[in-house]
């Protein structure tokens, strides 16, 4: 007898609430991500999308509510702890070590993943397997030629690729992408789009995006956020037809 | 009871001196994000000018002091416009290095011009005596210092809150890019605030000449105290500097009276505690 295994719930956001003094930026937000989900978080500017991602990744502490990652309550866990539990994210504003050669930036992610950054003696060049993996990652993203270039000297679109490469280098189970295409001109986004298509099948992905073509192409589920609260949560077709969403966001 | 009163008065006076010197640095740090470690030199220059005018040129104290302050303001404005503004975008360590170097040069220049001995400012008879308040007598000089400090605080607060320059200043501190786009003359604001800060430092140097003797190393010797007041009070906060200066000044004075063997321990313990409690400044959250 074949059993259908429901994919496990990897990320569970429960009644998340956040206030900054009088400002209520996250209102009772709940949703769950299972392995393989491609969830797009959309909404007007100021809806609180990045704030929500910041709470999930641990940059901000919520005022109320809980966050569960792969069965563990991580609401009080540090950013580093959540990464070790399988979470990774990219930033809307590119956040790279500006003077690091690209390869070193990737290697650093790998060292961190393997728990090697507490080692003081053996040189960073003494880990050939990790260096090879770093080069593979660069090759997959078409950046091998820039291995020695400081990250700040790369083209903006390439920096966005590094953002994604770093998150994937950590081999996460849950990936949060904060506007990966932000600021990238329409034409230059091909490699980023290819990278999105090539994401591992069992990875749970939450993506914040404004580009609706990308959203409807990529997402298996859409959550619409407006003024900090969930306006709608469903399949792309359902969202497209939802009159509330059309009125508030999609412009009819 | 006697001692307590002395501690309060001396502490308040000391705090006022620190405040008047520090407020310019606080504004400069908050406004231009410019680490000016040569700020102590302005206090020194103001004091030296007043000393020379009253002792050598035999001017009246009441004329010498405004002139000394004006001279310090001019020096500040010239330094800012010609040299320091080129460092505004630079790394903090660069600013530290440059302004330390500038302090060294000013110390050496001061010694070359006036020699290494302590400079005294001749006080007018009015200030050299005591004032009878009925229940206590106070040295008149202390009264002047406290009064001057409060006046400076009030004037600074009024300028920032009520005048157009104050509006420009606040806009420039909060968002210089937008302020500039709105037509606010940022360069003028920067230069004028810097000069005002230098002038106030000079005034503080004059007021504090008794507590902090004027000699060439003055520029660096009291810099730590001024930085402490700025840090504890919060960069850019005038009220914060006042509270921090008075609080720390009183603690330091009290420890000198009551526990002189412990040096400045209590001052720095208090400072560390306050800063750890409110890292962004006493009055900011």
């Amino acid at each position, binding site marked *: 007898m074949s059993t259908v295994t429901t994919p496990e719930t990897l990320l569970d956001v429960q009644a998340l609430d956040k206030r900054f003094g009088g400002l209520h930026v996250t209102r009772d937000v709940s949703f769950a991500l299972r392995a393989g989900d491609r969830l797009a978080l959309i909404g007007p500017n100021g809806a609180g999308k990045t704030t929500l991602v910041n709470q999930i990744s641990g940059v901000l502490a919520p005022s109320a509510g809980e966050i569960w990652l792969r069965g563990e309550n991580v609401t009080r866990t540090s950013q580093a702890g959540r990464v070790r539990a399988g979470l990774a994210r990219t930033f809307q504003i590119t956040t790279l070590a500006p003077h*690091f050669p690209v390869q070193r930036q990737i290697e650093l992610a790998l060292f961190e993943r393997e728990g090697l*950054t507490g080692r003081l003696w053996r040189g960073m060049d003494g880990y050939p397997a990790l260096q090879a993996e770093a080069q593979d990652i660069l090759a997959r993203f078409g950046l091998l030629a820039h291995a020695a270039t400081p990250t700040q000297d790369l083209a903006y679109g390439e920096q966005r690729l590094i953002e994604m490469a770093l998150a994937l280098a950590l081999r996460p189970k849950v990936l949060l992408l904060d506007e990966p295409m932000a600021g990238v001109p329409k034409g230059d986004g091909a490699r980023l789009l290819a990278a999105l298509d090539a994401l591992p099948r069992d990875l749970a992905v939450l993506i914040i995006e404004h580009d609706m073509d990308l959203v409807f192409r990529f997402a298996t589920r859409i959550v619409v956020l407006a003024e900090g609260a969930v306006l709608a949560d469903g399949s792309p077709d359902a969202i497209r037809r939802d009159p509330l969403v059309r009125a508030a966001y999609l412009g009819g | 009871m006697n001692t307590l009163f002395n501690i309060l008065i001396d502490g308040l006076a000391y705090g006022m001196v620190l405040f008047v010197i520090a407020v310019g640095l606080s504004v400069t740090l908050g406004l231009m994000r410019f680490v000016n470690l040569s700020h102590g030199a302005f206090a020194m220059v103001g004091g030296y000018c007043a000393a020379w005018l009253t002792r050598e040129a035999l001017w009246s104290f009441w004329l010498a002091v405004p002139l000394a302050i004006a001279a310090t303001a001019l020096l500040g404005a010239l330094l800012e416009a010609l040299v320091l503004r080129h460092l505004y975008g630079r790394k903090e360590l660069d600013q530290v290095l440059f302004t330390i170097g500038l302090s060294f040069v000013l110390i*050496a220049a001061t010694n070359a011009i006036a020699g290494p001995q302590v400079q005294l400012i001749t006080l007018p008879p009015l200030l050299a005596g005591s004032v009878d308040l009925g229940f206590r007598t106070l040295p008149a000089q202390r009264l002047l210092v406290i009064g001057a400090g409060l006046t400076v605080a009030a004037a600074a607060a009024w300028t920032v809150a009520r005048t157009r320059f104050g509006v420009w200043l606040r806009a420039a501190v909060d968002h210089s890019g937008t302020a500039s786009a709105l037509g606010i003359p940022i360069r003028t604001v920067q230069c004028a605030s810097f000069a005002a800060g230098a002038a106030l430092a000079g005034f503080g140097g004059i007021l504090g000449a008794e507590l902090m003797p004027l000699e060439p190393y003055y520029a660096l010797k009291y810099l730590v105290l001024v930085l402490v007041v700025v840090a504890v009070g919060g960069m850019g906060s005038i009220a914060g500097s006042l509270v921090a200066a008075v609080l720390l000044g009183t603690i330091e004075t009290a420890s000198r009276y009551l526990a002189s063997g412990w*040096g400045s321990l209590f001052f*720095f313990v208090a400072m560390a505690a306050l800063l750890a409690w409110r890292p962004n400044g006493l009055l900011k959250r």
Partner: protein
Amino acid sequence: MNSPLTSTVAAPAAASVAAPVATKAPAQRPAVRCAPPWRAPLLLLIAGLAACALFPEQLGLITRIFIAGLFVLSLDLVVGVAGLATLGHAALFGLGAYAAGIFALHVHADPLLGLGVGIAAGALTALVSGAFLLRYQGFTFLMLTVAVSQIVLSLVQKARDWTGGDDGLSGFAMAPLLGRFEFDLEGRVAAGYALAVLVLMFYAAQRLVQSPFGLALRGIHENRARMAALGTPVFRRLWLLYTVAGALAGAAGALSAQTNAVVGTDSLSFALSAEALVMLILGGAGQLSGALVGATVFTLLHHTAASINPYHWLFVVGGLLMLVVFVPPARVWTWLRQRAGGGR
């Protein structure tokens, strides 16, 4: 299946952890590689020995340079590598000096044991103060380091019975090094001892900086948010680094106590912390070798100019500091290298 690697030129000395080496090598060779960690320390050893051989009258000054170099090296780890600007580093140096002096005076006069005590004192002070200090950043952290070192100074001044207070600690004589080498009046043993300790610790620092730990520290320096997002326990890494730097500073302090046979409160002063920072920025922060260059240049300058007139020397060094900001040493070294090496 590697794409052809671009051959690269030595990068300008700007916090680059790997000086990319020109390679026309087979495709398996990585494009970025660190220089061998023993190279610079070996150069240092040769230069140090040469200096001692060429200027046997100046061994006292040369020993002071070695000790200053070690102290500034320790500061470079904190300021240049980890990016934590501190003005309280003298506390670690001074407590190392006092610990070594007190140990020699009351327990045992063996230099190496005393060195160990100094290292332990520096490391322990860094461990304890770092637990508090490293919770803060930027200007707040800077001022708190000042507070901590001033508190240490006050405590040392108060504990007259142990430290001699403002008069300083003296009256201890060191036993022969390794049981054989007496500290001679010319200062040869002292110079050799200081150089040996400096070279060994420089090598250790090189390895640390080239390790994954060192890479993570540079990452924290350049972008803390990125490191947190990679899963780095930032506080723990900085705390470990600060403790190691404390050990090196404590060693420098111990050497100072042992080679001078006296410890004064100036070893804990704000002026010493500021001077070390100036030496570091002068020579170039972040490259380790810059620390040694800055310490050498500044100490030599101070020695030559101060004997002329203590105030006029301030003109010289003040002017130099202002100049250095507009003409950075890094660019000068690169320019010199290009002139000397015909451009690489």
